[in-house]
């Protein structure tokens, strides 16, 4: 059966672990601990001579702990998707979106990169693009890829992704394809109401997400320049790329700071405290880039005039912290750069006020026709 609205009342705040209380803090600490261990197991091993994740991976027949992580990631998504669909699966948009997202992650984000090397192929993550996957435009990476994959990466990152975002909004990536978004919308979905809706958090997001985008572009450009200079300046090379991978070079710092700490440890670790899109909203360079294109493009949330009862369901359940209600109660159709088009505001709205759509820019606005006419 296909329905559009929220199917029955949610008991969100009556479930203790979803309330940003003690159990939320505990879950958060567990997640953060897991990520720290995952990223720094080598260091732990150096001092304590244990590496449980690597051992567990080996016993499961997975090549290394990153495949174990990939496996757990898929399991968490599947599990989360099951509960997401129990809550919101009465709507077809939600069903199709989540299924596609999970399928992409399991196939392109796990199975394919696992299987390809078995047949002598490259370990390649086809669902990730630059600048999210920041090293995919590094010259050395491109050099090592087979030609067709190098072309795929360049064309995907620089042409297809922006173009699709122009026509359909950034949701095509952030809510249908991306693994980070996928985990947020499945495993992280129980905490979506915890994102902050204040103007302050919006200001923070604008500064931080564009800063990271700048850092992503700048570091990639420097690394490209370093490659072109072909080690002519060893000082420059040392600063930009480092002589060993873990020298404190720009490349290493970006990878550690953005790739590990912000996207993994903080991004996922803070789900139970700040909502599931901490990374996507505040730090993801891909989201920032596609967001700017989205503002110029055709995607928007349409608001049905004079029907909003200011209830706040849309704002509460916006994982990106957009105060949707402030637009809806002003009869204002809108496009926000951060909106990932998950569709939950439209789904939650008890008065059917909101609708996601792709329209030609400047399509005529219907305005307040036919409503209580106030002669001012």
């Amino acid at each position, binding site marked *: 059966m296909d329905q559009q609205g929220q199917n029955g009342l949610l008991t969100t705040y009556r479930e203790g672990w979803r*309330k940003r209380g003690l159990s939320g803090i505990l879950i958060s600490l567990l997640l953060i601990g897991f990520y720290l261990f995952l990223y720094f197991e080598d260091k732990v091993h150096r001092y304590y001579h244990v590496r449980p994740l690597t051992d567990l991976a080996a016993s499961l027949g997975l090549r290394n702990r990153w495949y174990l992580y990939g496996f757990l990631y898929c399991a968490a998504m599947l599990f989360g998707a099951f509960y997401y669909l129990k809550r919101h699966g009465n709507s077809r948009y939600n069903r199709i979106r989540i299924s596609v997202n999970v399928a992409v992650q399991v196939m392109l984000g796990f199975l394919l990169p696992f299987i390809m090397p078995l047949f002598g192929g490259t370990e390649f993550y086809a669902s990730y693009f630059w600048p999210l996957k920041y090293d995919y435009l590094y010259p050395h990476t491109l050099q090592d890829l087979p030609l067709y994959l190098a072309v795929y990466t360049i064309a995907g990152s620089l042409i297809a992704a922006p173009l699709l975002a122009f026509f359909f909004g950034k949701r095509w990536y952030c809510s249908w394809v991306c693994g980070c978004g996928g985990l947020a919308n499945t495993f992280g979905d129980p905490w979506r109401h915890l994102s902050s809706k204040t103007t302050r958090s919006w200001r923070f997001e604008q500064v931080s997400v564009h800063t990271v985008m700048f850092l992503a572009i700048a570091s990639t450009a420097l690394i490209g320049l370093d490659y072109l200079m072909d080690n002519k300046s060893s000082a420059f090379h040392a600063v930009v790329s480092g002589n060993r991978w873990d020298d404190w070079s720009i490349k290493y710092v970006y990878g550690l700071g953005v790739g590990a700490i912000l996207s993994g440890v903080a991004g996922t670790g803070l789900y139970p405290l700040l909502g599931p899109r901490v990374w996507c909203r505040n730090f993801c360079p891909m989201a920032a880039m596609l967001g700017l294109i989205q503002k110029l493009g055709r995607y928007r949330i349409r608001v049905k005039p004079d029907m909003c009862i200011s209830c706040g369901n849309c704002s509460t359940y916006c994982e990106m912290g957009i105060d949707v209600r402030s637009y809806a109660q002003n009869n204002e159709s809108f496009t926000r750069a951060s909106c990932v088009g998950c569709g939950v505001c439209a*789904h939650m709205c008890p008065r059917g006020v909101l*609708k996601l759509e792709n329209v030609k820019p400047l399509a005529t606005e219907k305005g307040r026709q036919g409503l209580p006419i106030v002669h001012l």
Partner: protein
Amino acid sequence: MGPSSRIVIIGNGVAGMEAALLIRAREPQWPITIISEESDHFFSRTAMMWVCCGQMNHQDIEPLQRDAYANANLTRIRARALGIDRSAQQVLLAGDHPPVPYDQLLIACGSRPRPGPWKGSQATGVGHFVTMQDLEWLEDEIHGGPASTRAPRHDAHLRASNPESPYFKRGTALESRGSTSSQPAVIGGGLIGIEAIEIMVAAKRTPHFFIRDEWFWPIALDTRESRWIGERMEQHGVQVHLEHEIEELVTDDNHRLTGIRTNQGEFGADLAVVAIGVMPNTDWMANSGVELHPRGGIPVNGSQATNDPNIFAAGDCAVLPWWDGTQRPEQLWYTSRDQGRVAARSMLGEKATYQRGLWYNSAKLMDIEYTTAGFVNLNITGERNWYFEEQGSVRSTIRIVTLSADDQDNGNQSDHNQGQRVIGFNMLGRRWDHSILLQWIRERRSLQWVLDHLKDASFDTELTPPLRIPKSALQQEPIAATARKTNQPTIEPPTFF
């Protein structure tokens, strides 16, 4: 900019707040005071049901951030108004608050629940669902307390309030019994009633639902539509009792509710939400000399002014002339907001008139969405109904009310006045853009034209399977409306559009 005027607004509901913000936008210097007994912050009354079940917390239903009062430089007084001294131009407050002087006063004091007229209506375990204090009472009775620890200060006013006030927090049966309700009941089959039912269902109870009418919500739904809602309620375990007249709310020695006796028998119940309507919340100003309608509302003219030129009224408490000649309040969120805006403009000295356009509304009945526009269920002489029930993967109903067009034709050139002319829509299950439906009514479109263009008014979410009406259904003639309440009088067709 006119001469400075001291503005006092009674009520920080949508009408009062909207007016305050609009006046502030125009007149940065005017002193504006808002008096509210119910709550510190403006909140969305329409959203109380979601707070009760835990879908949102108390702060989530506040449409403005909490610094809004400070940012707009609005003075707030949390107190109960006890009357208006018109000769001294001041509002009298309960407790030790000094009177508040005004140059212009806006009364936006909303509605209060209609009390049950039966024996036992004051028992512990009996309450309503209209005010913030009602919400807190129901949170206690059903769940043992609020879901969120950030609940508002409900007791701020208590020392100066009294049990007559709708904002007085009732004692709970929870206190004396020590446990939450296991067999709740709701009396009154309207929108607030079904919201209370949903809260109970979400809390995994199987409530009794006592409805006086022949079917659920006859002022808006016909039998076929209502049957679907009824089915959905029963699937959720609701015990729907139609055509039950309440005779007594039965209590024990502790004056606690134990059952409900109707003309058809007695039913055990330890909690009853009485939702038999709301009425203007104006008893506190009965002796102020501001004219009141016999049924309690404050009559206003098109500029929202009362009989006193310095006193205005807006929102649920104001009474306006309707198209059918009656004088009634409009108890809706969006009309309260618009009335607040018009009142503000009048107080600013601008010429503004509030004109109610065609009726529209939407609601959600259990999980079925409902949109209505125009003249529906009014039993207009000569009215016909075209009805279609979709039973595919989407379930929906479409009811289009028509009048025969010939005598209404006022020389319009186009052919869309032929045959049946559309005057109303009643839609369940799918989403519709009411603004387009209303436009068609005003454009006097024919039934045929409307059916041909129906998809233009669709507001379904993306990927929802599109509505397909089979040819046979499209060619059906509308039939004289039969699904009527017994003895419902007919009324003459509206002449104003």
